[in-house]
């Protein structure tokens, strides 16, 4: 059964020039214990979706349509109180550049304990003890509970953020670019920590990245986003070996690897269109190698192909990979 189901979700940012359709009719779902990757370029709506799952969208942003069903309840209908019970306890998030979001004048122990007390009816001593356990859990060690954030490196601060996010044992953990801006070796250590936590607490994870390799290693399924819409939704292995959408394929062939022979790579020409007054038809048309007349006239519907879905006119008549 799906733990979370996002249906036809639209989120617009209201600006003087008009509404920017940051997320436009997005649907996907995530099963329990699954790790879902959300991938796409900057500005494709990944972070906006992540924030909306906790109803963190603030004006000028507005959820204009659709539903987010978590465990049978539409969280868009919940009261603010109901939402508070959900945050931290059921769904938690490690936000982008979270390592810089720690309060510099509180010890990390206080910050973890604060989160625990906020969402759980426990006394201070219990919370402090649990804060220590959390630090142990993320590999920092309970003896650092009285340290301040500036005493930690970026990677360790990110571990603290993960300790805070998992402090109330959520079921669904959203990681928004959790390893961006960190060193390779630190990245690898963090990915290992995330995998360990996932196995140990049977976490369901939404992993947001613009980096295909990180997604490929860690996710069961991938949603490829482009300009506020889902381009392709597929299991990771098929996506890599037989990408359906021309954008997925372009992403894969633009990514350098240390394996195999050194090969020529292709960047994707151009840039995503304006989200305020998008052109008619497929938003990827201007950058697409396979563009046809219909692409500039009609928005492609989603086609189902072997349990995957792709929004591309190439699949109107064929079920075979076209790119």
């Amino acid at each position: 059964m799906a733990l979370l189901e996002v249906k036809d979700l639209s989120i617009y940012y209201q600006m003087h020039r008009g509404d920017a359709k940051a997320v436009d009719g997005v649907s996907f779902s995530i099963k329990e214990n699954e790790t879902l990757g959300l991938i796409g370029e900057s500005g494709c709506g990944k972070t906006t979706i992540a924030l909306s799952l906790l109803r963190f969208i603030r004006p000028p942003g507005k959820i204009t349509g659709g539903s987010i069903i978590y465990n049978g309840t539409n969280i868009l209908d919940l009261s603010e109180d109901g939402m508070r019970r959900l945050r931290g306890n059921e769904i938690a998030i490690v936000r982008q550049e979270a390592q810089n979001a720690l309060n510099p004048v509180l010890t990390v122990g206080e910050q973890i304990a604060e989160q625990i007390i906020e969402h759980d009816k426990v006394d201070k001593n219990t919370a402090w003890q649990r804060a220590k356990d959390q630090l142990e859990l993320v590999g920092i060690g309970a003896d650092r509970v009285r340290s301040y954030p500036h005493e930690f490196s970026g990677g360790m601060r990110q571990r603290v953020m993960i300790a805070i996010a998992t402090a109330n044992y959520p079921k669904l953990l959203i990681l928004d670019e959790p390893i961006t801006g960190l060193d390779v070796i630190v990245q690898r250590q963090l990915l290992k920590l995330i995998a360990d936590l996932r196995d140990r607490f049977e976490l369901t994870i939404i992993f947001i990245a613009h980096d295909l390799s990180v997604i490929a290693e860690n996710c069961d399924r991938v949603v490829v986003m482009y300009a506020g819409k889902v381009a392709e939704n597929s299991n990771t292995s098929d996506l890599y070996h037989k990408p359906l959408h021309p954008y997925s394929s372009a992403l894969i062939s633009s990514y350098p690897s240390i394996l195999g022979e050194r090969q020529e790579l292709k960047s994707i020409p151009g840039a995503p269109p304006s989200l305020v007054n998008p052109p008619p038809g497929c938003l990827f048309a201007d950058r697409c190698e396979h563009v046809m007349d219909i692409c500039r006239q009609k928005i492609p519907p989603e086609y189902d192909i072997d349990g995957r879905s792709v929004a591309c006119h190439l699949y109107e008549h064929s079920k075979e990979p076209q790119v």
Partner: protein
Amino acid sequence: MSILEINNLKTHFAQRQGFLRKLAGKEPDYIRAVDGVDLDLDEGEVLGIVGESGCGKSTLSRTILKLIKSTSGSMRYRGTEISDMPESDFKPYRRKMQMIFQDPFGSLNPRRKVAEILGETIDIHELAENQEERKQMIEKSLSEVGLDPPGEFWEKYPGLLSGGQLQRVSMARVLILQPDFVVADEPVSMLDVSVRIGILDLLLQLRKKYSISFIYITHDLATARYVCDRINIMYLGRFVESGTTETILKKPAHPYTRALISAVPVPNPDVGAPELPIKGYVNPEGLTDITGCRFAPRCPYTEEACKREEPECTSIYGSGKQEHRIACRNLAHLPEFVPRG
């Protein structure tokens, strides 16, 4: 031909010391950020320097450009010693060695239009005879870096451009000066994956067209592999392994290089993530007092001898540009390298 030759270059920073220590006339502790680097950059060569943050790669790049004063060692630009040259004599050389920074959003003045940013460079180095020539130079450099048509970008402020376009403006600014070599410090790490290759291709294209050499600084072996002819792996102020790009990636010898390779994420879901062979993190505080191998505290193959004496970077294969050098005294006891995938 060799453009830049560096021998035993060192940059040490004195640590702040307390009043009492000063009074007692004690020597301050030094952070040995760059501690004995040898490097040889040929015309049209792309040389990679790869390592984690804190390993000294940025200090090295700034020392090479004389933005930080070196402590000792020699740097020869086309045979001329520049390490102790006074700033007044150095200005004509400065044009010939330029830098592209990591953060395109922070390295361009947000209140200047693209044309003004590029014009300023021309004015400082007095490159144009008149307004017409100045305009042509700006136009040419913009189209050279793929910002075509130049007229479309001329009047724009950096805030209106994407990260990739901004990095192209940085390249244009450098290109106007017709440099001999450019230090590119993580030029693509802040850009979207889809535009990274475009910037790296531009770099390769400029090297082909104008024989510009590059020193490419990064922590990402995947992009380093794409552009570099040779790679130096740096750890705490020194090169621990140097070789051609394919040698470093296919036959890495040093345990640190191997760790870096196993840490790089691979876009193929069929290739699993290996267990990371090393523990801990870079600790630059260990740079004040060094005995033995700098990597020993994190190395899985450390032996007693490693802790006593610092290994020299010695040649294990080939010579000249094919040479494979490594600083590890335990080489004979290292297990065979198992490639991923």
